[in-house]
Structure formats: structure tokens, C-alpha cells
């Protein structure tokens, strides 16, 4: 059985055909009704985003699919692109019609270069079938998609950094506002959506907003694709409704007995076993789909060390809280490992983490201290007074 039952049971192009019969405001209304929120993790309502871009006046607009899947522990977009590329491109075409864009760009991360030939073949086939190009399916809709290869930078998952890369600059996030829906690629209104968001949009157009809302919670509607790895028996990609509890999810993947679960990747939260009844949804624990399970034998400081190494390496270096803050937190973890960190200094590090959350320019710096702060809060008994035998 496919790990993605909903996407697998869709009728090819039914969503696009439906969209072609609807007016632009009607498509956006359907998206708003569905309550779909951005599947990259930030959870911005998709219908609202499309509406902003549709309302913006410009000679050109763009639809950008963010396939720069770099969050540690996330790999769902790779599976979606391998198995349901048509659904993603269908979603992009629908978005193109909704906002009035003629060009779509798939920003594919450099690490996924091996997917490129497959995706190019799917695009070529769609052009042959008149699903892309001029006069799509006999209507006056014009839309085409090209692939842009990323060059190895986690930060380009941030939408304004991604646009900087597309424009040929360093992937350094811009100030927001103005948001890309007004001032995006080449200064034109641009919709930047995650791979899964676009595939889900195609499903919503096909089956309707009410069908989508049957699953999930009131505030987090529909299904979500999860990438599950770490200490469990059946790692892989899973589809679950939004609002599933951590405990239910662990049961499904054979991860019972876990000591902690990292929800949302390195920039997410570390949930201890005592909180496994909490739900995964935007109103409780938000996630882009990354779930990393830590078994009872894992040392949480090793985990933090790995995460902070990652952030030190991937910080773009543009703003000080993130550039220096992550280095300081990493040094703090090293001190803790050696048992040389005073309680006063640990408190200072936590204050630094909170400062980074407030003062960093983009999501990377704002969320990179989350894991540190949640480990300090929930696993304090593991951290202090360590001897070298622990290391």
C-alpha cells in the first residue's frame, strides 16, 4: 500500500479541470474555506496567501514551489516529488490560474539533483498533454514551469532567501514586510508554497473544501504527511490526520518506549514522554512533518550538539543574534558535556536563546534555540554536573 493514500486516490487532473471552470475568486474562496495551512511548517493560510498575490497589481506574477526541503528529519517532499509529481505541478497550475501568474518555478534542493531528470520528464509529458504551455486544455490559460537547482543552503528554505537565490544572490533573507506576495521574485508578486501544500491544493479543488475539513481539527484541517525517523521500528513517510497525538503516532511507527520526540526538526520542539498526549497541530505542536524519535538510551546533549553544529554551519551570518548566538549555545553544550557549566551561566544561555527568538531576522535564528530551551526545560536532570564518563 502506498504510504500516501489520499494523494494516490486522486483522479489525475480533476482538480485542474475543476479550477478551469471556476473564476479566480471562486478558486481562492474554495482554498480559504478548506482552511489549508502551509505545510512547510510555518502554517500560513494558503487561501489568504493566494488572495494577497491575486490582489496585487503587476505585469508579471510567479508561483514558486519550495522543494528546498532541508529541515533535519524531513523527507516527505522527496517522496511526493518521486511518486506524485503530477499532483504538485497540477497544484502549481491551479495556483497560477488563481493569482494570474504565467510562470512557475520549482526550486529543487541541490541534494535532490537525482530527482531532476524524472521531474523534467513529467514536465515534458505535461506539455505534450497540453497541461502546461499556452491554451491549457482548450482554455485561455497560459502557464509553464521550470526547475531551478539550489546550491546547498538550508536557509534557502526561507522564502525570501529562496528568492534571493533565484535572483542570483547569496541566500540571505530579506526583511518582511514587504512579503513575497507583493514584492517577490524580481520585485513581482510571488506565491511561495511548499510541495505538499501545492499537492494538497490540487486535492482540495478536486474533492472540495468540505471533504478536506472532514479530517483534522477545527484550526488545523485535513491530512498531513509526516517524515518519521530515529529510534523506531518502521521509519518512513506516513499520512495522518492533523491533531494526532504523539503517543498514537509512536504506536503506528513502533516507537513506543521513546524517551523524547523531536517534532518539527532541529528548529522544532523536543517533547518529553510526559507530554506524549499532546497533539500535533498548529494550535498545539506545529510541524512541517519532521518527527525524530529518541530511544531511552539517547543522550540529549549529543542530540543538541548535533542540532547546534547544524545551525552554526547553516546560519547565513547576516544578523548577529543568529550568527553569534548559535556559536555561544554550541559552546554551552560543550561545557555541559564536560560538566563545567555553572547554573548561572546556563540561565544566561537560556536568556540568550530567548533573545535570539525575538531579535533574529528570520525563522532560522528565531527557531534555532527552541531545541536547546526545550531540552534544558525538560531534561534538566541529565544536564548538570556531568563527568567525563558521560561523554
Amino acid at each position, binding site marked *: 500500500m502506498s504510504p500516501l493514500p489520499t494523494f494516490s486516490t486522486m483522479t489525475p487532473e480533476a482538480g485542474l479541470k475543476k479550477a478551469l471552470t471556476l473564476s479566480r475568486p471562486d478558486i481562492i474562496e474554495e482554498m480559504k474555506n478548506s482552511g489549508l495551512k502551509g505545510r512547510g511548517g510555518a502554517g500560513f493560510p494558503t487561501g489568504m496567501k493566494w488572495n494577497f498575490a491575486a490582489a496585487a497589481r503587476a505585469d508579471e506574477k510567479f508561483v514558486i514551489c519550495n522543494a528546498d*526541503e*532541508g*529541515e*533535519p*528529519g*524531513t*523527507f516527505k*517532499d*522527496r517522496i511526493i516529488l518521486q511518486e506524485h509529481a503530477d499532483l504538485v505541478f497540477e497544484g502549481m497550475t491551479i495556483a497560477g490560474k488563481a493569482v494570474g501568474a504565467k510562470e512557475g518555478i520549482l526550486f529543487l*534542493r*541541490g*541534494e*535532490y*539533483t*537525482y530527482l531532476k531528470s524524472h521531474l523534467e520528464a513529467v514536465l515534458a509529458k505535461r506539455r505534450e498533454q497540453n497541461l502546461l504551455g499556452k491554451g491549457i486544455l482548450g482554455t485561455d490559460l497560459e502557464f509553464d514551469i521550470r526547475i*531551478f*537547482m*539550489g*546550491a*546547498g*543552503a*538550508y536557509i534557502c528554505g526561507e522564502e525570501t532567501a529562496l528568492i534571493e*537565490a*533565484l*535572483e*542570483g*544572490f*547569496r*541566500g540571505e533573507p530579506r526583511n518582511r514586510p514587504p512579503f513575497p506576495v507583493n514584492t517577490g521574485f*524580481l520585485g513581482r508578486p510571488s506565491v511561495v508554497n511548499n510541495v505538499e501544500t501545492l499537492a494538497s491544493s490540487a486535492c482540495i479543488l478536486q474533492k472540495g473544501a468540505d471533504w478536506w475539513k472532514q479530517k483534522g481539527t477545527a484550526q488545523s484541517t485535513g491530512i498531513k504527511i509526516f*517524515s*518519521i*525517523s*530515529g*529510534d523506531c521500528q518502521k*521509519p*518512513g*513517510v506516513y499520512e495522518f490526520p492533523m491533531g494526532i497525538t504523539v503517543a498514537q503516532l509512536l504506536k503506528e511507527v513502533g516507537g513506543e518506549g521513546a524517551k523524547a520526540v*523531536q517534532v518539527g526538526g*532541529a528548529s522544532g520542539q523536543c517533547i518529553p514522554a510526559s507530554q506524549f498526549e499532546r497533539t500535533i497541530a498548529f494550535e498545539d505542536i506545529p510541524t512541517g512533518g519532521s518527527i*525524530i524519535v529518541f530511544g531511552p538510551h*539517547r543522550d540529549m546533549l549529543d*542530540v543538541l550538539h*548535533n*542540532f547546534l*553544529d*547544524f545551525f552554526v*554551519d*547553516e546560519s*547565513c551570518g547576516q544578523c548577529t543574534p543568529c550568527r553569534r548566538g548559535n556559536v555561544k549555545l554550541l559552546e554551552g553544550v560543550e561545557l555541559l558535556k564536560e560538566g563545567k557549566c555553572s547554573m548561572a551561566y546556563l540561565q544566561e544561555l537560556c536568556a540568550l536563546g530567548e533573545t535570539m527568538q525575538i531579535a533574529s531576522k528570520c525563522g532560522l535564528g528565531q527557531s534555532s534555540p527552541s531545541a536547546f530551551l526545550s531540552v534544558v526545560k525538560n531534561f534538566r536532570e541529565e544536564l548538570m554536573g556531568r563527568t567525563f564518563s558521560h561523554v
Partner: protein
Amino acid sequence: MLMTDRERLAGEIQALAEKHGKCRTALIPMVQEVKRKYQKIDSYAMQVIADQLGIHPVEVYSVVSFYAFLGSEAHGKYIIRLCRTISCDMQGKDRVQRQLEADLGISFGQTTADGKFSLEWANCMGMCDQGPALLVNDRLYTRVTPEKVHEILEECRRTFGVHATERKEAHLV
């Protein structure tokens, strides 16, 4: 001889600029293609790219030095990128690292003297359910064990001869 090499490079970069449209948005695709063919972007290549796009060469350097898959330094014919992020780490990437270093006689961040192999770290490659994972150029290997390392390297060595002769004929675009 040196001039001819340079002229050929300049000609190829010019053709690339025409293919991608002579504007700033062409910069990353151009650098990617030059890097793929020459395994480096030297200051001469950066100057020619800058001339073609009408920007200062330092702008090119600024972009080249930012991205992990670009970088101006020369690397080997095969870049082995081992994922070091959490899930691969928990699945034993340390031992794969040791074996790679032992088999090639270099450390991560270095290139073998014969210019065949470079060892580099990658941050999460999205193969967390099948780690430890590594990329050899664009080719993916999953569930790599220390014993498999030798096999992977041999596979590269076997195809190296073929690639080397192909390269004489290869031209960009």
C-alpha cells in the same frame, strides 16, 4: 597552451551566458555548470562570468563562497558527501566516516592527491529513514555500512577511466 585553455573556458562561459540569458538570475546556473565540468571556479572564471553578466567579480565570489555546493576551491572528480545530521548520526555515520578516511587516506574537507576523491560533510540530505546516507556527486547511497565503503569507492574507480576519456571530448552546452 595556457591561453588556449583560458580562451576555451571564456568561450564556454559566453555560450552559457547566452543560453541562460545575460542577467543576474543566470549566475547560479552558470556557476553550477562551470563547477560541474571543471571541478572548480578559479578567479579567471569568476572574472569572465562577471564580465558576461555585467557585475563586479566580487559579486560572483560572494555567491560562490556562500553555497555549500559551489565554492571556489578545486575538488576531486568524485565528491563524497556524507550526511552528518541527527538521524544519520544516530544510525552510525561515525563509523562510515572513519572507514572513508581510512580507505582514502584523507580527512573530511580534503581531496586525494590524484584528484579523484573529495570528502565533504552534508547537512540533512533527506534520507533520514535510510541512513547513514551519502552522495557521490549526484548518485545516492543509503544504509551505508563501513564494509560497503570499499565497494562504493571501487565502483567510482572502475568508471573513472571512462569518464576521463569522455571528458576530453566534452564541451559545455
